[in-house]
């Protein structure tokens, strides 16, 4: 495992190739599942939680909140996973036996404090927005994803999306946003 971590850099993760994604998934999977088994959820739930922990980890790599890996990838996955497991247990209303300290459920480990962990169901407005976002052109979707998901600055978007200048990015972005707003308004009347 350590070896794997050394071989996989933050940049490779951010590049997000299918191969890297799969490798990291496979390398940490059984270790995670063994760790999760002590909490007595079903194996299917454990796999589901592993995937969700992986998604949270990956999102925070992509949006730059995890700027450097101070621990091994599995350590991050465990911490996120533990948080998600407790969350799941609370939702399942399962009693937690033994020495698990439920008072800490709401507080993720310290290293997670800066990460985005929560993902709640979309609101009505968000669902409407979702519908119209899908109908945007590919270039608009890409630009907005760079901006809101990756947390890129205008300058970074210029490089990543091959735009000629920052102003081109800015006006493209406001056009995309305008289209979105207009379509939503058309639909609400």
């Amino acid at each position, binding site marked *: *495992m*350590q*070896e*794997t971590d050394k071989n996989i850099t933050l940049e490779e993760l951010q590049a997000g190739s*299918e191969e890297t*994604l*799969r490798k990291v*998934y*496979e*390398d940490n*999977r*059984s*270790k995670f*599942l*063994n760790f999760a088994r002590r909490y007595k959820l*079903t*194996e*299917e739930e454990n*796999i589901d939680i592993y*995937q*969700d922990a*992986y*998604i949270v980890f*990956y*999102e925070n790599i*992509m*949006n*730059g*909140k995890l700027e450097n890996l101070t621990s091994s990838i599995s350590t991050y996955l465990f911490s996120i996973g533990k948080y998600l497991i407790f969350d799941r247990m609370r939702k399942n209303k399962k009693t937690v036996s033994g020495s698990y300290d439920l008072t800490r459920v709401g507080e993720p480990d310290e290293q997670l404090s800066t990460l*985005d962990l929560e*993902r709640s169901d*979309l*609101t009505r*407005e*968000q669902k409407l*927005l*979702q519908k119209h*976002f899908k109908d945007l052109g590919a270039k608009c979707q890409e630009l*907005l*994803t760079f*901006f*809101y*998901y990756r*947390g*890129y*600055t*205008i300058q970074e978007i210029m490089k990543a999306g091959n735009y000629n200048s920052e102003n081109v990015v800015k006006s493209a972005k406001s056009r995309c946003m305008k289209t*979105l*707003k207009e379509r939503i308004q058309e639909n609400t009347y």
Partner: protein
Amino acid sequence: MDKEQLLNDYFSNRLTPEQERLFTELLETDGEFKRQFDFENDLKQVIREKEAKQLKSKLIGFEEGIQKEVPATAPFTVYRKWAMAASIALLVGLGWLGYNNFSGSGYIDMYERHFQEYPNTVYAITRGEEADTSLERKAFVAYETNDNVQAIALFTQLKETKNTEAVNFYLAQSYLKNGQAEKAIVLFDETINEKGEFRPQALWYAALAYLKINEKENAIRMFTDLVADGRYKKEEAFKLLKDLE
């Protein structure tokens, strides 16, 4: 300060503490700023959701690949997989029975014909896990590689701290593979009495172990319970019961 720039900096996680204060203040006092922020923040959530969904379906794909490649990772709580495994075993078993037409040359023979070691369905041993030096892993590696003496030693050690149904069951399996049927029976009994997931499997193997030591009545008792349980090798047990009687 340009409000648009402030929002941009917020979404690229670049607000200075001073800007953060201004940002919070504007959210409370400036209705238009708040509306614009809500809209952009909603958009952010929508994109996060979309990206998460895409990644999730990729991971589900990886998972399917793994489950196909290493059936040992199938958890023992998945009844459907049990059913599949059991019906395949049943088909093979029945076919074999029909083909060989029970010769009646003693119960050991019957044991030999039906004993097939139970696969490791509990602990996934995959590549790239060399750093995992847990006792559990070592025990299952020994089990899978038929190093029975080693497996017995490791599962016995594991049982001291982790006396679970699965550990008991695989320790019993290891004894049976190693030709120590009596020892296996004691442990299978423990598993049977747990009344958990492994009960029907334990009944099947306990019955076979009794056959091996020529204890017909006990074998019949186990097969009868197994047929009543109905979760595993029911028809095969039924057929063997008939043969025994």
